[in-house]
């Protein structure tokens, strides 16, 4: 069962290479390196046999590097999606299954965009009278050389097609996922880890687009091909950036927990050092994605967290009149403590969080800043107040007497 599933999630190229020894005997990474070496050796041998110019060798090398780097990026897709856990929402699960099915369809739709690029490209090179071929391999090249160049062209075109195909599908998937996420109820959600995987694949595609810039020297004499390459790069990068951005806006908490975290005013932070635990109430903010709390620079828990950044963070709604309505969520995981060294990279995030705090606790902010306070209670960011981000690894949710473990 597992085997057949794995076999399904392969593309033509992966499939073919996977069957030829020695590639079939190696892991993906080494298999790709070996392919690179293999192509390089053939290219160099052909170059010497037919005595082509050095510049042609360099063009060939560049094309091979592009094809292989694209391979490297695109082949991460299947293993990443393979370890993907099912979302805890039927609709979102259906969507992601559909996405995977189209991506790895048994009819190999992924080769179509490649063909759609390859055929006009060959036509353009051989019949529209451009002198690209001459620039690449000289006048009247040997047939074997032409076959090798065509093979490289197919390699490039096929992967360009894959790039377009995967980034367009990713954008469609992200838009649908965002829409479905708005209709979630109770505990439905797609876990954080899975959202991060999708985002990582989108970022991969941005690099995929950027790599196409390496093709520019090969096409430099032909304005049309340069334009096509730049358009390709723009399309892939743009759709992937948008897709990654949309994914970043999909809540990683199910609505029940999201609302609890969003509406509650207080949290408890538990720390532990050498087995000795410590628990205190804190004020916190939630920006829809991340949870931050503030602590005084003098606080015991800060000293503890600097030595052991594992924490438990609990937010609850307590109501003695009806305990079955009580809700609580506990995040266990790690914290990131923001300090001076984080200002260059995270200044806007730190300022944004400060603003959130002032909006959520206006009375606190007022009272803290108008009174004469001991140092531990002063509000000066970084100097007296330290910003801490909670990075959950595990979520436990209680509703009434029921305990539910929610995947992160």
């Amino acid at each position, binding site marked *: 069962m597992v085997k057949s599933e794995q076999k399904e999630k392969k593309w033509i190229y992966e499939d073919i290479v996977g069957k030829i020894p020695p590639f079939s005997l190696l892991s993906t990474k080494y298999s790709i390196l070996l392919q690179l070496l293999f192509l390089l050796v053939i290219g160099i041998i052909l170059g010497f046999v037919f005595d082509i110019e050095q510049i042609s060798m360099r063009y060939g090398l560049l094309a091979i590097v592009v094809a292989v780097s694209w391979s490297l990026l695109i082949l991460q897709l299947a293993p990443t999606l393979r370890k993907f856990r099912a979302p805890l929402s039927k609709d979102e699960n259906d969507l992601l299954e559909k996405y995977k099915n189209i991506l790895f369809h048994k009819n190999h739709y992924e080769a179509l965009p490649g063909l759609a690029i390859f055929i006009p490209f060959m036509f353009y090179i051989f019949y529209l009278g451009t002198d690209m071929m001459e620039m690449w391999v000289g006048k009247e090249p040997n047939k074997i050389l032409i076959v090798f160049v065509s093979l490289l062209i197919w390699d490039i075109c096929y992967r360009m097609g894959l790039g377009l195909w995967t980034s367009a599908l990713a954008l469609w998937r992200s838009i649908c996922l965002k829409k479905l996420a708005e209709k979630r109820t109770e505990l439905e959600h797609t876990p954080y880890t899975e959202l991060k995987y999708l985002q990582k694949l989108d970022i991969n595609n941005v690099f995929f687009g950027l790599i196409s810039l390496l093709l520019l020297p090969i096409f430099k004499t032909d304005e049309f091909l340069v334009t096509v390459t730049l358009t390709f790069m723009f399309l892939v990068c743009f759709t992937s950036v948008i897709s990654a951005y949309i994914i970043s806006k999909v809540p990683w908490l199910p609505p029940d927990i999201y609302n609890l975290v969003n509406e509650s005013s207080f949290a408890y932070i538990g720390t532990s050092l050498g087995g000795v*635990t410590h*628990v205190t109430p804190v004020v916190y903010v939630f920006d829809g994605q991340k949870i931050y709390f503030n602590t005084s620079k003098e606080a015991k828990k800060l000293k503890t967290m600097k030595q052991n950044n594992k924490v438990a963070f609990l937010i609850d709604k307590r109501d003695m009149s009806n305990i079955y309505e009580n809700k609580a969520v506990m995040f266990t995981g790690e914290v990131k403590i923001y300090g001076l060294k984080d200002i260059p990279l995270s200044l806007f995030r730190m300022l944004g969080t400060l603003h959130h705090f002032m909006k959520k606790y206006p009375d606190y902010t007022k009272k803290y800043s108008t009174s004469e306070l001991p140092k531990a209670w002063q509000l000066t960011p970084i100097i007296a107040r330290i910003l801490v981000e909670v990075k959950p690894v595990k979520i436990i949710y209680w509703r009434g007497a029921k305990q539910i473990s929610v995947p992160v």
Partner: protein
Amino acid sequence: MNIPDEMRNILYANYFGYVCTSDRFDQPHLTPVFFVYDENSQKIFFITNERSKKIKNLSENPNISITIDIRDPVNPFNNEGVMAQGIANITDRAPIYFLSEETLQLYYDIYLEFKSKYQLVIDNKPMGENDVMIQINVEKMVYWKGPHFKSLKFKKDSQIFS
């Protein structure tokens, strides 16, 4: 020696305590609990399921802390609370006729205490089938009100349970 009134008041007037335990890898765990404070022994008691993560952690590491507090969303100067740190002792789950008289008496007292404190919410049945009682032998207690702190250390006394 009795604990100061302000700490006592917090311990008696509140229903929820937040218990923090940690496992052998120093990973903390936090849960809200119902608790009672016993003035005679100066210990805090709560009841939990014997299969809970708390119990698992406590069997690896008996250190425990509990916070009981009053939170005021408007005025932080009204925030008031107590954190007690100490060592947890899990009561034996031996059949009742194997327990010492002392233990039984304590069980009974604490049970009644729970019953009266939480009668509105737990239907006269504070302990379920798989529940165990935990006693916290307090070693240190911290009290705060607004920005003011007070700290109290306890002498190690003999444990009540054998």
